[in-house]
């Protein structure tokens, strides 16, 4: 079915501007892996050369990125210097089928955790911030889909840190840099989804 191949190639150009640039440089040879007929190849090449491809790629990227940043704003802020390269690697390995923030954010959080633990992503406090946001998303998912109810203990999560993360989370929330020093005192944060809106508080010793 060549129409499906044509649409596939079109979408892949949008998702990966590299294919679009290759088509501009190499012509129809760039579409060698797609089983299109002659007319479809010519049509797609014509599209690749139109200035509108650039804005199409920009909007697609912005839509995908906003799902991830919306779900993991603090982690994305912390990783901002390497985020562009990181999401390119992520999307190459895991093309997104679902743009909804909750599932998209949880999937990206898992990828980030794997990358950090494997040492391929290095950033001070990245795993701590990710752990906090991931717990937030998991609680949101369980309370919003009814697997736990506001009022259940399952709607509460305790996170233990080796330091007080409050200044770190506040700085990232304000779009600021990671503080040079953090209070060196073990701290337990409580994410409480029993109330609306949910609350984060420090557990008093």
């Amino acid at each position, binding site marked *: *079915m060549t*129409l499906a191949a044509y*649409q596939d190639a*079109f979408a892949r150009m949008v998702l990966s501007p590299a294919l679009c640039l290759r088509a501009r440089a190499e012509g129809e040879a760039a579409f060698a892996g797609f089983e299109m007929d002659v007319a479809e190849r010519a049509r797609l090449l014509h*599209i690749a050369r139109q200035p*509108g491809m650039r*804005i199409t790629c920009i909007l697609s990227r912005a839509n995908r990125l906003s799902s991830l940043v919306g779900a993991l704003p603090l982690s994305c802020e912390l990783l901002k210097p390497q985020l562009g390269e990181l999401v390119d690697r992520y999307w190459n390995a895991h093309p997104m089928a679902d743009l*909804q923030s909750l599932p998209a954010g949880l999937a990206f959080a898992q990828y980030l955790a794997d990358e950090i633990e494997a040492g391929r992503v290095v950033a001070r406090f990245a795993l701590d911030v990710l752990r906090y946001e991931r717990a937030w998303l998991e609680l949101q998912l369980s309370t919003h*889909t009814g697997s736990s109810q506001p009022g259940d203990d399952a709607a509460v999560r305790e996170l233990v840190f080796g330091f007080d993360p409050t200044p770190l989370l506040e700085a990232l929330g304000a779009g600021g840099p990671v503080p040079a020093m953090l209070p060196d005192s073990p701290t337990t944060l409580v994410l409480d989804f029993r109330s609306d809106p949910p609350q984060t508080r420090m557990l008093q010793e």
Partner: protein
Amino acid sequence: MDFARLQSLPALGVGLLLNPDTLASPEADGAYQYLEVIPDRFWLDGGPGSSARYRELGPSVAALDTLAERVPIVCHSIGLSIGSASLFDTGHVEQVARWQRRYGCAWHSDHLAFSRLAEHGVEVNAAITLPLTRDEASLEMLVERVAAIQSHIDVPFLLENNVYFVIPPDEPYGEAAFLSELCRRSGCGLLLDLHNLHVNATNHGFAAEAVLDELDLRHVVEVHIAGGDQLAGFYTDSHAGPVADAVWPLLERTLRAAPWVRGVTFEYHESYAALLTGGGVARELARARTLWERCC
């Protein structure tokens, strides 16, 4: 198209696309006569083939239930991707049909485009709606799919004209001819997004009025109005704040010429709410309502 069926639809008037800002801005209450919702935002979709595929987001659905007691609801879904040659998601159609019945929506709509692709069992989303080629192959596929959708949904099904930044060359149909022919052959109605039309006219250098003159406006059931902004040298359909100035005369022209328009929906994106502070949403709705009352 069964025009008698369109004639029998209730005239809802002027509505608002529901977004999180709308819920937080009671100032717009009373300024709209119906709410349009994107049902896909009220559930998590595990994807075709997954068990218990749709998990509804309880608090959001509860808020919608409350609103539905006060105003009519119309659903405008985004997840169908009717133009995808590699997939046709009947599970999605069944889910939106359930929602249509649940809220008693007078019609249901989605977008005339493709964004989802399935290759070797793996689904990919282009994260933007892409244009179909306006040719016989597309028409044949769409006619078949509209028939399948209409067999599930008890009310008229509408397709919305899409924004496109690129144009497939050598298309046998122009935009107006393709939309009119699609409606004629398939029996679907048209959700005419006047801002999308304005975006395309601006970026591709044609007159939006000429499209309206050529289009068979008897198929238009609902109209969208919105604003946009510039990005990377293009004018986009970002739903940025107030309705674009150029859209208002297009709305008046449409309302005067389209015999069975049943609703005009104002869309804005919540991230641009700051451009509508101080009663801006109510102001846009009131202006649309003035035109509605004058022309319909």
